[in-house]
């Protein structure tokens, strides 16, 4: 793999001057598209730098596929612009045809051509580009080795497993060394184990080749593994753009917090604001007071007495005793259910009016079905 990456310079922008460092591989400006009567994509701005892996993540129907297909050139936007390597590719009145965009794409259905062998599938883009026979043979072989399909080169797709077809689709998309690789839920048709394996493999490949990717999924775990940056979408709009850590630990909205990972949302009232420390003291409706970090913009408007929603991840809730002895009294909670999951217990507890999910190594002791719990220091985050 390193050999191939060295032989082929994936990272250099092929048409534009490499000197122009500020130029994005892909840039979306105010992109909009209405399908039927839904605003499928409703104003999206995004820049993807060379070599970056960006994942579009969002619930079903939020416009991920539509966005991706506009980038590919299969759908023309109603408004906004798409730039590839700094050159306009689509707007409402102009659309460069897909074949002129020099992209690679992996389809959810694989779309491996059933009448062509593995080799012919992979070689197709090179043939269309008019490369010499020797070149085609060499590069096809290299890409097939890259996805570990060297041995199956002469099979027809019908003679391959789903996972293998998936690899053919990937190899085909990589063979032409596209300036940008698009993937629309490429793993969703695989079984769970294979899906998990492929995630890491794809990430490894992406990093080794340094290829710029735009990846669409509704699976948060996939997004966390694959992304340099995650773009969380909802109802045709972007909710947040950030690194996996950012979107997980510091979600910009209630929606993002709820969509990525398991979230406990606790309502409360601001008791004190510490702008310098970037945190507020929240008096929870369920009892207890805790210091919670908050987004800067929200912090700017926060005053004592205003309402706040605090996010706590299940693993950040401690049962029985506080992490530090000087923490406050804790929150009283009643037992609802308990599940043993091997390395931890998954508990459901009721605190005030809110159902909490807690992951704990200890089973917790309950008196009359009651216990106390504390938040891990520094883990709370205000989402709204």
């Amino acid at each position: 793999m390193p050999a191939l990456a060295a032989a082929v310079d994936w990272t250099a922008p092929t048409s534009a001057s490499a000197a122009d460092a500020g130029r994005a591989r892909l840039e979306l400006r105010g992109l909009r598209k209405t399908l039927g009567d839904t605003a499928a994509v409703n104003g999206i701005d995004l820049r993807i730098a060379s070599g970056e892996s960006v994942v579009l993540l969002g619930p079903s129907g939020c416009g991920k596929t539509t966005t991706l297909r506009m980038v590919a050139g299969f759908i023309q936007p109603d408004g906004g612009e798409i730039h590839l390597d700094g050159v306009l590719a689509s707007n409402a009145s102009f659309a460069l045809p897909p074949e002129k965009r020099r992209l690679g794409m992996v389809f959810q259905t694989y779309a491996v051509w059933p009448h062509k062998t593995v080799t012919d599938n992979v070689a197709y883009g090179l043939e269309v580009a008019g490369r010499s026979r020797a070149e085609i043979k060499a590069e096809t072989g290299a890409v097939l080795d890259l996805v570990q399909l060297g041995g199956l080169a002469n099979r027809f797709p019908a003679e391959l497993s789903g996972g293998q077809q998936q690899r053919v689709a990937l190899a085909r998309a990589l063979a032409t060394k596209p300036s940008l690789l698009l993937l629309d839920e490429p793993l969703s048709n695989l079984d769970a184990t294979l899906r998990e394996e492929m995630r890491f493999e794809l990430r490894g490949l992406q990093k080794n080749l340094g290829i710029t990717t735009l990846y669409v999924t509704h699976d948060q775990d996939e997004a966390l593994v694959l992304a340099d940056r995650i773009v969380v979408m909802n109802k045709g709009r972007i909710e947040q753009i950030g690194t996996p850590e950012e979107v997980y630990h510091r979600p910009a909205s209630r929606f993002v917090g709820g969509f990525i990972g398991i979230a406990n949302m606790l309502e409360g009232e601001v008791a004190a604001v510490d702008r310098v420390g970037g945190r507020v003291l929240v008096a929870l409706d369920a009892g207890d007071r805790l210091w919670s970090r908050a987004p800067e913009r929200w912090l700017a408007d926060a005053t004592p007495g205003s309402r706040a929603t605090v996010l706590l991840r299940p693993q950040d809730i401690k049962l029985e005793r506080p992490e530090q002895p000087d923490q406050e009294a804790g929150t009283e909670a009643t037992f609802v259910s308990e599940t043993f999951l091997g390395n931890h217990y998954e508990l459901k507890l009721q605190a005030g009016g809110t159902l909490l999910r807690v992951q704990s190594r200890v089973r917790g002791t309950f008196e009359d079905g009651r216990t106390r719990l504390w938040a891990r220091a520094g883990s709370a985050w205000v989402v709204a």
Partner: protein
Amino acid sequence: MSEISLTSRAVGDRPSVSLLRRLSALQPVRFLVIGLSLAILFALIAYPLILLTGYSLVDAQGHLTFETFEKAFARRGMWQATVNSAWLVALVTIGACALGIPLAWIVARTDAPGKALVTLAAGVSFVIPTFISVISWIFLAAPNSGYLNKLAIDYLGFETAPFNIMSFGGLVFIEIVGVYPLVFFAVNAALNNVDASHEQAARILGSNRLRTTLTITLPLVRPAILSAVILVMLDALSSFGAPSAIGTMANFSVITTKIYDLLKFPPQFNYAAAVAMPIMVFTAISLLIQKYAIRAENFRTLTGKATPEQILTLGRWRWVAGGFCLIVALVTAILPVGALLLLSVLSSFGADIRLDNLVGKHYALIFDENFAARASILHSLLLALATATVCATLGLVLGWVVERFRFFGRELIGFLVMIAYGFPSIAYAVGILMGYVELFYGTLTLILIAYAGKLLPIAFVLVRNGIQQLSTDLEEAARISGAGWLRSIKDVTFPLVRGAVGIAWVLVFSLSLRELSMSAILAQSDTQVMPTVVLQFIEDGAVELAAALAVVIVVVSLSMLGLIRLFTAKKTTAVA
């Protein structure tokens, strides 16, 4: 939110798009292909139909008038012909249902012996056009010399000949035998697709077999029956071959033969167009019923699979049902085919059936260079080749356009094509004649235009279905790999629908070979085709020659249809 992640509109000026880039994005080839196929479609289908309607409604001075209708229908015998057509349609429809539905039920749901035979027989009588089965039945049941009549008088003690095929009743019989397979196949397929669970659910609730059949099964297959009934009615109404052959001898007319008469020299286009109108209107109404009434009922899309539990054990009745099957097979397939083969080698119609009376001279005459029949064989083959190629190509392009493009008027293509399908051949031929006779008088091109327009729907539907089953991803993957629009069709779409295109080609080829009603109107003395020559032979009383030429048609058609196996076999390996 990091700085690089969001761009403001101020960053980077809006680049202007060069004219060249805009032009390259337009894909001129694509527009050319679409535009051209639309133009051809209009020329083939819309134009003749508009002419036809126009002629019937406009008088010589160009005024809108209904006078043409009045005059046309006031002509001698015209009213009687209309009544005859109405009777023909009614009787044939009833007869085809009475034969086809019970047979379908026996084959799909009972353990009667001889089921395979019935299916085969229905296939055979479906393939043989009525102008050919007429020949067989003349041989078997002509009033005096028919061999069945002779048999009845000589051996069964009949005083007079019991059968007379040269009568209105004879015509009804031949038409029924020709169209009942439509009902049989449709109902049989529907019955096979009724999931056992529907019927079992009723049985569990206490309904007995008969009641279940009447209240569950029958309503479920009703859409299939209605669709078939409409096809049968349209077929009977627009049939021309048998009515023409028998009508000439028995001295009666139906609408289609009247239209034909009106176009004999001197041709009276206005009247022909006016007389064709009732057929057109009836067809249009039927198709609308088909589209709305039957579609509305199609919530019960049948997708199940019949299971052995649904097979009824008939017990003693088994042999009655088996006998019925055998008789049907005998009468609709074995006898006619046997008679046709025999007649084609019999020294003369009426001769005793003995070995030394079997000769090959009729075939020799047909292939004789100095005889009209040979030219007609060449013409037919040439036309079939050309029609099949034109239809398969157009079907591919149009099917692709309709399936893959969203543009205004997309539905119009499908609509125009389907109009041509429902349209009675004879009326369509009149339209073609009016539209193109001056350009192509007396040429095979004129006939080709008519064949192509009329058979295009078959190719279109087959290829369109093939394309429908192809995921668009497959083509898009080619585009993303750098292939242009045309190249993606060539490399991906076409290889994958090749099976469907091949089947369409073969079907259109076979159907062109046996096309009579349009050929009869459009063929001139030096553009005769096999069917018109067969008809001429029948009308001249040369039934042996008619039989020999008919055998040629059937053999060529059947061998071409055999090619379908080839395509279907390939298809299964190609599509995962």
